[in-house]
């Protein structure tokens, strides 16, 4: 991928540089319960700008909940979350909207808007939220669709596309907002096996060629090993082990991590 792809950031004071060397995302004492079930238990961790962090662990260990908290789809019961120095919880609605602009999310079930064309899925928010003109937004959308290999599907309805194509559109839609942080929630889990590789290759490209910070929940261990700067192993709402992918996948300290990895590999 060349340096002038639509993903490359323009020099802009509002991006990573403002917190260079610091933390872009910080969770402190975050606890989340559903009824009597504690899904996140006094969680503390932070992510530096530009890093790719993968969250692994058994189902129900709270990985997806972290992404949903960062996307403000749900609220923590205790604790604070800050993004780029600005608190997300607790915070007034107006500030939440500001912080949310920095974050994009790709979902397991794609969640494209079925009533809009592929192109309008990509232009709707840039026009309505970022205030781009229709032409600017469409130009940006076409570049991104080209990047994900779906330039010819601009006018198609999402339901006409395969799962893999829909997920690539969803990735392009998230990128159209030029987020600093991209949250990837088991983005290949709903795909037919033969479509997984295409989506993962695209994400590898994006990880390599941009400075977008990525938080990724996945069961694709090969992909996690490739793109991660750091891997967090979750169990029962806690991070039980954190480290470089070579360490976690090669020589984990915790027995639980070893068990989990040998079970999924």
């Amino acid at each position, binding site marked *: 991928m060349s340096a002038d792809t639509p993903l490359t950031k323009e020099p802009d004071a509002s991006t990573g540089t403002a917190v260079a060397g610091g933390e872009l995302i910080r969770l402190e004492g975050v606890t989340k319960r559903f009824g009597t079930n504690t899904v996140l238990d006094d969680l503390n961790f932070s992510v530096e700008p530009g890093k790719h962090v993968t969250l692994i662990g058994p189902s129900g260990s709270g990985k997806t909940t972290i992404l949903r908290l960062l*996307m*403000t*789809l749900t609220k923590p019961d205790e604790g604070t979350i800050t993004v780029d120095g600005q608190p997300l919880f607790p915070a007034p609605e107006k500030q939440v*909207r500001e912080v*949310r*602009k920095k*974050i*994009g*999310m790709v*979902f397991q*079930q794609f*969640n*494209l*808007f*079925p*009533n*809009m064309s592929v192109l309008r899925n990509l232009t*709707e*928010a840039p026009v*309505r*939220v970022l205030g781009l003109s229709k032409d600017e937004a469409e130009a940006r959308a076409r570049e991104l669709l080209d990047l994900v290999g779906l330039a010819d599907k601009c006018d198609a309805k999402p339901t006409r596309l395969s799962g893999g194509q829909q997920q690539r559109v969803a990735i392009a*839609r*998230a990128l159209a*907002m030029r987020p600093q942080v991209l949250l990837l929630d088991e983005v290949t889990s709903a795909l037919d096996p033969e479509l997984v590789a295409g989506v993962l290759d695209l994400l590898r490209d994006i990880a390599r060629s941009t400075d977008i910070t990525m938080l990724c929940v996945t069961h694709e261990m090969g992909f996690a090993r490739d793109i991660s700067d750091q891997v967090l192993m979750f169990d029962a709402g806690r991070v039980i082990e954190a480290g470089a992918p070579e360490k976690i996948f090669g020589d984990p300290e915790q027995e639980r991590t070893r068990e989990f990895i040998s079970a999924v590999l």
Partner: protein
Amino acid sequence: MKWDWNAVSDFMPDFWKGLLVTLQALALGSLLSFSLGLVWALLMRTPTRWVRWPVGVVTEFVRNTPLLVQLFFLFYVLPEWGLTFSALATGVFAIGLHYSTYTMQVYRAGIEAVPAGQWEAATALNLPRARTWTAVILPQAIRRVVPALGNYVISMLKDTPLLMVITVLEMLGHARLFSQEHFQFTEPLTVIGVAFILISYLASLLMRALERRLVR
């Protein structure tokens, strides 16, 4: 009993007048019930209890009292409060209001059927709340409820003869007048019966065409 084609042709001029009124009441009543129902459904989703509670009480009351009683009330009681409307306008309002309390439930079901993932995607893209409703949720919800709304159009059609009691001369009103003047009942009543079936059929074709257009 003998079928008299002359009676049919004598009745036709009155029939066309009645048909026009029936169609007016049906079209305007449908429009009113579709739009008011959507307003109720949206108000019932506001976070403030002080909006939901009165809307809930009023719509529950209207849904559970007979349309006939509502017609009488609006036609004879409202003028005492200084509000006077034409009989047809009163009838359209009564039908539209009455059926809006049913269509609101149809809309509610349609809105609830939109997957949570659509709301989440809209939040993730930071779309304003109003825009999420108008561009994402309602287009999908309304598409789902067109067939159910169509059924209420047929129901409203079958309730239009009630307007006779507040002096609106729709099809049944004209048939009744004609019968009383000419002592011929079979022909005018049969004519309007056939007309009801045809209008129902045409209305269902129209709704199906609309459905197909929306689903595309």
